[in-house]
């Protein structure tokens, strides 16, 4: 894992001091709320329906036990004993007092954490593959590149007042576990002639106008990547729309001028700035990469397991994935218990995850964009012990990638933008399908409480969008989306439903899938083969 040196620590400490100063000026009335808003937003502090929400950055989703314990401590001391893991691999506290925020940031700084650029119209926290360093199919660990981008983008003097927020994801595997092409910039590490570089995708996103990012450059050597990103951002900062908040993301710029014109502008800009020394010395990426070298794995770790307990076997089959090293496994801890709130964890649960990471997981945990937690390096011989501890804490739900592993935004229960409640719907769906999830196989269901699409409904195999229809909550259903390497955008089935109606409609869809599927097909495969029509019939014209 990355460790701060004196320079990193000084920057984070200075930020705490700066924010303390800003909060004091706001509380004294020296600053208006209008002036304070972009400053607090750039530090992850939102004013929600009931209180302030503080979003803390988890760079590329990687946490160590010390950091997890700090998050649990903050949940206990400053919040109501729980916290919420987000689709951007971050963590949010929903009941924060403004006057406490500087102290919370000071506590976070002691464990090398911060809330820098977790909101605002700037380059946000960089996300990555939760299996980084453990997956067998990666060309390199993507996190050193993500860390380099974190540093390059932190307080970038040119890009703090962009037209709109800007999200970057980095992956290094054929399998895309980070929805890379649904980001403003998606980077996929590739090797060419023994040189590591990146494919650069620009202009993806969800929201009102979902777009899958086109490939803008098929190879940028890592040694020149920061300069190329600077060119990408500068073109956007200069020419992105600022007249309409809904058209201000970079995807709209690409859509309006075309990917080819954008590519040409970036190349021209890159040519202008290439000799300016924007990229760090090569030794910097080497320095960072050395910290991600990973644990020392044992060559004699046994592979065999006792699958005698059927509950344990079900969890193994669903939540445990192959590790690059024999005798090890990647564990995904589901934060989606039936009837629970997707992504929520209590302080005690977070402490338990810290204990497990420390005792069995080589001191590492990851947050996933699907709002679960990964222990990336667990010896197979320890899996049963891990499962027992998780089960005692209510964290052993064997539902990774199944219909109840729902991504949901906070919705109208917390969010001032929402039109509808996402959480109660997720709970209802979980209860409706309880016991039948494995029969349905991989089925990614995603719920957004408004058009801003924080719950990734466009990318759900089944997506649900909450809208406001004449003052009542109404839910639209979408089918056929994917945020993975086969990225696609879901299509709306037709007229929307009330809360119970959409649960019924989802069940009709899955019933039709079960009657239509051929061997080995996931729901998404069947949908792509037979199209929307049979599902529409099942929903709106049941026999």
């Amino acid at each position: 894992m990355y460790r701060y040196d004196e320079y990193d620590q000084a920057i984070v400490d200075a930020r705490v001091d700066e924010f303390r100063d800003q909060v004091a000026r706001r509380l004294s009335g020296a600053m208006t709320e209008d002036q304070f808003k972009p400053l607090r937003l750039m530090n992850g502090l939102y004013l929600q329906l009931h209180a302030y929400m503080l979003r803390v950055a988890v760079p590329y989703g990687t946490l160590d036990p010390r950091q997890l314990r700090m998050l649990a401590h903050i949940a206990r001391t400053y919040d109501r004993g729980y916290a919420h893991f987000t689709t951007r691999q971050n963590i949010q506290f929903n009941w924060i007092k403004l006057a406490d925020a500087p102290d919370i940031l000071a506590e976070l700084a002691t464990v090398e954490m911060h809330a820098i650029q977790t909101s605002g119209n700037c380059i946000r926290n960089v996300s990555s593959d939760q299996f980084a360093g453990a997956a067998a199919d990666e060309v390199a660990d993507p996190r050193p590149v993500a860390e380099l981008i974190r540093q390059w983008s932190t307080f970038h003097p040119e890009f703090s007042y962009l037209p709109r927020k800007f999200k970057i994801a980095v992956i290094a595997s054929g399998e895309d576990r980070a929805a890379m092409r649904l980001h403003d910039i998606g980077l996929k590490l590739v090797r060419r002639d023994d040189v590591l570089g990146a494919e650069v995708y620009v202009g993806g996103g969800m929201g009102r106008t979902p777009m899958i990012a086109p490939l803008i450059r098929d190879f940028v050597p890592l040694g020149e990547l920061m300069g190329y990103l600077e060119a990408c951002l500068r073109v956007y900062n200069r020419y992105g729309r600022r007249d309409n908040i809904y058209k201000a993301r970079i995807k709209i710029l690409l859509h309006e001028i075309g990917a080819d014109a954008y590519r040409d502008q970036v190349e021209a800009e890159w040519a202008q700035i290439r000799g300016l020394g924007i990229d760090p010395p090569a030794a910097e990426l080497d320095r960072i990469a050395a910290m991600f070298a990973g644990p020392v794995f044992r060559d004699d770790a046994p592979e065999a397991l006792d699958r005698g307990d059927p509950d344990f076997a079900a969890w193994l089959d669903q939540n445990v994935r192959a590790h690059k090293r024999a005798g090890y496994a990647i564990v995904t801890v589901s934060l989606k218990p039936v009837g629970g709130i997707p992504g929520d964890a209590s302080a005690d649960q977070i402490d338990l995850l810290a204990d497990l990471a420390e005792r069995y997981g080589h001191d590492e945990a990851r947050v996933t964009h699907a709002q679960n937690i990964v222990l990336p390096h667990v010896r197979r011989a320890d899996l049963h012990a891990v499962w027992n501890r998780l089960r005692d804490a209510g964290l052993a739900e064997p539902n990774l990638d199944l219909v109840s592993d729902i991504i949901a935004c906070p919705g109208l229960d917390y969010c001032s933008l929402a039109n509808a409640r996402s959480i109660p719907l997720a709970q209802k769906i979980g209860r409706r399908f309880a016991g039948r999830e494995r029969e349905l196989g991989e089925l990614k269901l995603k719920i957004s409480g408004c058009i801003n699409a924080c719950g990734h409904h466009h990318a759900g195999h089944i997506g649900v969008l909450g809208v406001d229809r004449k003052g009542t909550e109404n839910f639209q259903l979408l089918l056929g989306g994917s945020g993975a390497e086969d990225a696609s955008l879901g299509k709306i089935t037709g007229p929307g439903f009330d809360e119970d109606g959409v649960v019924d409609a989802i069940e009709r869809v899955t019933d039709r899938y079960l009657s239509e599927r051929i061997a080995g097909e996931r729901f998404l495969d069947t949908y792509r083969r037979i199209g929307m029509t049979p599902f529409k019939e099942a929903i709106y014209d049941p026999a």
Partner: protein
Amino acid sequence: MRDEGGGDTPTVLRFRDDAVHDEPAVTLDAFAAQPDATAVRLEAGDDARALLPALERLQLVEVGFPSFRDGRGYSAAAILREAGYRGELRAAGDVLVDQIAAMRRAGFDSFAPETPLDDAVARRALARYQSPYQAAADRAETVWRRRHG
């Protein structure tokens, strides 16, 4: 840091030792038509690169910030400094005290905010961050450079 100006003109905060340039800044269009002009004002949507052929004679570039949220002027400043412009580069308009440290990094060396800045807050803001990660127009020694000599 020194304040100059007075009367009805907004107070200018300058980080330069030369004398204040007293020629009024003209628009980019007017500048193109006046071969002797030495001061120009760029609006947020203007292309700073249009000035590159005239850098030799320019002594003052004023960049307008219609709203503190409009960040185009930071790119304009960076482009001019990258091209070798050494004259005064002034941020004018809706410029807030919490922005001037980044603006200094982007290449601005004078400020004409609509609302005067609190001097003590400005001093704290400018002194707060020691080493930045990334290279910028201010040529501050970066963390990356310090780490690797």
